[in-house]
C-alpha cells in the first residue's frame, strides 16, 4: 500500500523495465502498484497502448516488486531455520499444566480469543500473560511489555499489584531486579469503537515500533460492538468488525506479537452448524468475528470447588467436592479449546489463586 505519491514515483522509477514501458505507465498515471495489479492484462494493454508482450513484463516486474515476502519449506518452519518473520513461537502462560494443554502456550503471531461468561477468569488469564510476556525468551516470554485495552470495566490494578508480588517470588534474584514488571504494562481505557480503531491504527504501532510491547490485549471487543449497534445493523457491524480484525492481524504479523481478544458469550438461540456441542452459551459477535480469529478458547465455571491451599498435588475436579467446605475455597474453572489450528477440541480445568491462574492435572 503506497500512499505517498513521491515515494511511489521513485519506486516506479526503480522498476527494472524498459523506459518505454515506464513512460507509457506514467502517461496513464496509475495511482499505485495495486492499481496496476488490479487491472487485467487486456485492460492494461488498452490503457497504456502497450503490446501484449510488454504488458506481461510490466505485470511480472510489478508483481516481483510487490511480493517480497520470504518463503520457506515446512521443514524450515518446523526447525525455525527460516526467516524471522515466518517463525511461529509460543508465549507461555506461566503455568506448566496450561502450557502443556495449549501445546506451548499462546500462538505468536496470531489472534487468540478468550471467551467466557462473566467471572470465568478471562481477565485473570490476560493479566498473567501480561506478566509472563515480560520474561526473557529462554523463560518462555517475549521480552517485552504489554498493552492492555480496557473497554468493559476499570482495570483491576490492585489485583495486578498482588499478581506482581506473587510473580516476583517465582523469579530468581537477578531476573527480579532486571524486570520492572509494573512499568511495562500500558493500560488504556476506551469506550467507543472509533477510539479503539484510532488506538490500534496510530498509537499502538508507535509503541510496537519502539519494540517495547510484545503483547496486545483487548478486553473486550464485545463490549463496544454489542452496545453501539442496533439489531438491524448487523451488516454494518460485521463490516466494522472485519476491518478491525484485519488491522489486528496486520499488527500481529508485522511486529510478530500475539493479540488476545476477550469476548463475551451469548445464549445459543439456533441450532446452526457453527457450534459443535449444541452448547448453551456461544461466544458473542457471530460468524463475522469467528472468521477472523485463529484460536478460540472458552472459559467457564464448573460446579466444583477446591480449597485454595497450596497443595502440591491438587485433587482432580471430580474429587474436589470431597474436601471439606472451608471459607477459602475457590471454584474450579474450565478451559475448552473450541477451535485452533494445532489443538484438538479438549477441556482442561484450572483455578484462580492469589498467585494467578493454575491448571489442574
Amino acid at each position, binding site marked *: *500500500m503506497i500512499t505517498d505519491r513521491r515515494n511511489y514515483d521513485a519506486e516506479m522509477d*526503480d522498476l527494472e523495465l524498459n523506459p518505454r514501458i515506464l513512460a507509457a505507465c506514467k502517461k496513464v498515471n496509475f495511482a499505485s502498484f495495486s492499481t496496476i495489479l488490479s487491472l487485467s492484462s487486456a485492460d492494461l494493454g488498452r490503457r497504456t497502448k502497450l503490446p501484449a508482450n510488454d504488458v506481461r513484463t510490466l505485470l511480472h516486474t510489478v508483481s516481483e516488486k510487490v511480493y517480497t515476502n520470504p518463503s520457506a519449506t515446512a521443514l524450515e*518452519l518446523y526447525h525455525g531455520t527460516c526467516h524471522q518473520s515466518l517463525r511461529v513461537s509460543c508465549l507461555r502462560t506461566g503455568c506448566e499444566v496450561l502450557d502443556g494443554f495449549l501445546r506451548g502456550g499462546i500462538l505468536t503471531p*496470531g489472534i487468540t480469543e478468550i471467551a467466557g461468561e462473566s467471572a470465568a477468569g478471562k481477565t485473570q488469564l490476560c493479566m498473567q500473560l501480561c506478566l509472563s510476556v515480560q520474561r526473557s525468551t529462554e523463560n518462555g516470554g517475549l521480552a517485552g511489555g504489554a498493552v492492555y485495552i480496557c473497554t468493559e470495566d476499570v482495570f483491576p490494578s490492585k489485583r495486578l499489584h498482588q499478581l506482581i508480588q506473587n510473580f516476583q517470588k517465582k523469579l530468581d534474584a537477578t531476573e527480579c531486579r532486571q524486570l520492572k514488571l509494573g512499568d511495562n504494562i500500558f493500560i488504556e481505557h476506551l469506550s467507543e469503537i472509533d477510539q479503539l480503531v484510532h488506538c490500534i491504527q496510530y498509537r499502538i504501532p508507535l509503541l510496537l515500533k519502539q519494540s517495547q510491547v510484545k503483547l496486545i490485549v483487548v478486553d473486550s471487543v464485545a463490549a463496544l460492538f454489542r452496545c453501539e449497534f442496533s439489531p438491524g445493523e448487523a451488516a454494518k457491524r460485521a463490516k466494522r468488525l472485519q476491518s478491525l480484525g484485519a488491522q489486528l492481524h496486520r499488527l500481529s504479523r508485522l511486529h510478530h506479537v500475539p493479540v488476545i481478544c476477550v469476548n463475551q458469550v451469548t445464549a445459543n438461540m439456533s441450532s446452526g452448524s*457453527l457450534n459443535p456441542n*449444541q452448547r448453551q452459551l456461544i461466544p458473542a459477535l457471530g460468524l463475522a468475528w469467528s472468521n477472523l480469529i485463529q484460536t478460540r478458547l472458552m472459559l467457564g465455571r464448573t460446579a466444583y470447588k477446591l480449597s485454595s491451599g497450596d497443595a502440591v498435588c491438587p485433587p482432580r475436579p471430580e474429587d474436589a467436592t470431597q474436601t471439606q467446605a472451608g471459607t477459602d475455597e475457590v471454584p474450579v474453572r474450565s478451559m475448552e479449546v473450541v477451535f485452533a*489450528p494445532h489443538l484438538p477440541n*479438549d477441556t482442561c480445568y484450572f483455578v484462580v489463586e492469589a498467585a494467578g491462574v493454575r491448571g489442574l492435572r
Partner: protein
Amino acid sequence: MFIHYVKGHQVLPRTSKHFRIYAQSKTKMQRDLGSFPLPPVIRVKLKDSGFSVVEDVIEMKPTELSREIGISKEESLEILKMVRESTSSSLPCQPKTPSNSASSSSQRQQQHPEGNKRTVTALEMLRYEKSSPAIVTFCEDLDEMLGGGVPLCKITELCGAPGVGKTQTCIQLAVDVQIPQCFGGVEGETIYIDTEGSFLPQRAADIAVAMVGHCRRIADTNDEEQQTALAEFSMEKLLSGIHCFRCHDYTELLALVNLLPEILDKHKKVKLIVIDSIAFHFRHDFDDFSLRTRLLNGLAQSLIKIASDYRLAVVLTNQMTTHIGNGPSHLIPALGESWGHACTIRIILFWKDNQRYANLYKSPNKQEMTVPYQITMDGLRSVPRLENEQASTSTSFRHDEPQDGNEDDHLNPCKRLRPSENQR
C-alpha cells in the same frame, strides 16, 4: 582494542558461512566486465567510472547505473540483465541441477505429448483423466464422494465455518500429494499459500509422521520398489516438500499468483497449490464490490490456467457467511454468487450433531452427497462405519492409536486406517 577484537570474533562465523556460499560463485563475481559482449563506448564508460568486475555493478539499480556512468536507462538495464544472467546460472540458491530439471521436464513432456497442441478431443481428455491419479484425502468416504480423491487440473473449493477442519484438510492434502507412485500416490510437492497465518508446522509434522507410519505398515516387504521408496521417505522429506508462502493483503496475493508460473518452473514437482484462505483478504475494507468481483474472477482465471497448464490440483478454502433473505437465515459460502462459478468442485464442511460432515455441493461428474469425516491427531480420517451411531458420542480430533495394517491393505492407500471393532 579488546572490544574490537571480540566484535570481530563474533562476526566471523557468520561471514565465513556467507563466504562459503559466495566462494563457489566467486569466480563469476570477479569476472571482468570487459569480457562481456558490450559496445566499446559503454565499456570505456564503465572503466572510466571505476566499474571493472561483475561484483561492482550487480547490486545496482538501473537508474543508479545510468546516472553514474551517463548512459541511457535502457542501456544500463541491458547491461544488468546480461551480467545477472551470467552469475545466476551458477548461484547455489538454485536448487535444481541442470540435469535434474532436464529429466523432470522431459518427464512432463512424456506425460502429455499433446502439450503443444491447443485442441484435444474429448476422448483424449477422458483417457488422460482416467490415467491421471487423484490426491487421496485419507478419508475413504471423502475419496469415494470425490471419485478417488482431489483431482488434478481442477480447482476444488472447501467452504466451512471456523474450526470445522478446512485448514486441517489442506495440510493433510499437502502431505498426501507426496505419497510415492509405487504406493499409488501422485509423488508431487505442494505450494501452500497462507493468508491467515494458520499453517502450523507442528501440525504438518503430526500428519506427516502418521503418514510415514501408515506407508511403513502397508508396504510389501517383497516389493523392492516400495522398500527403496520407503528408505528415503521420512517426516523431514515430507515437510521439505511443502513450500510455504505468506500473503498479508490482497495485492500481495495477486502479485504472488502472477509469479506462480515462475515458481512452478523452479519447483517442477509441484502437483498441488493450496490457498488458505482465498476469502480472508477479500472480505475486509472492500467498498467497491464490482472491483472485488473483477479481481476474484481474474484470480480464478489465472488459477484455472495454471491448473491445466501444469497439470496440478488447486485447493482453495472459503469462509461462510450468514445469508439473510426472506426466509430464515442460513449459512452460505462467502464471496458472493459469481465466485460460485469459479471453482469446478465445491465441498461444504459443516457440523451436525457433534459430527463433521462434508457435502459435495458442486461437481461436474459426481452426484451431490454428504459423508461424515473426523479429524484425529493423525489428520483427516473416515468415521468407522460400524460405530457410526456411537461416533457422535466420542469427540473427534482425538488421538487415535495407530491401527495395525490389515493383511489386504497392501498397495492401496485408499484403504485407510479404520479402527477395528475391538478398539474403543
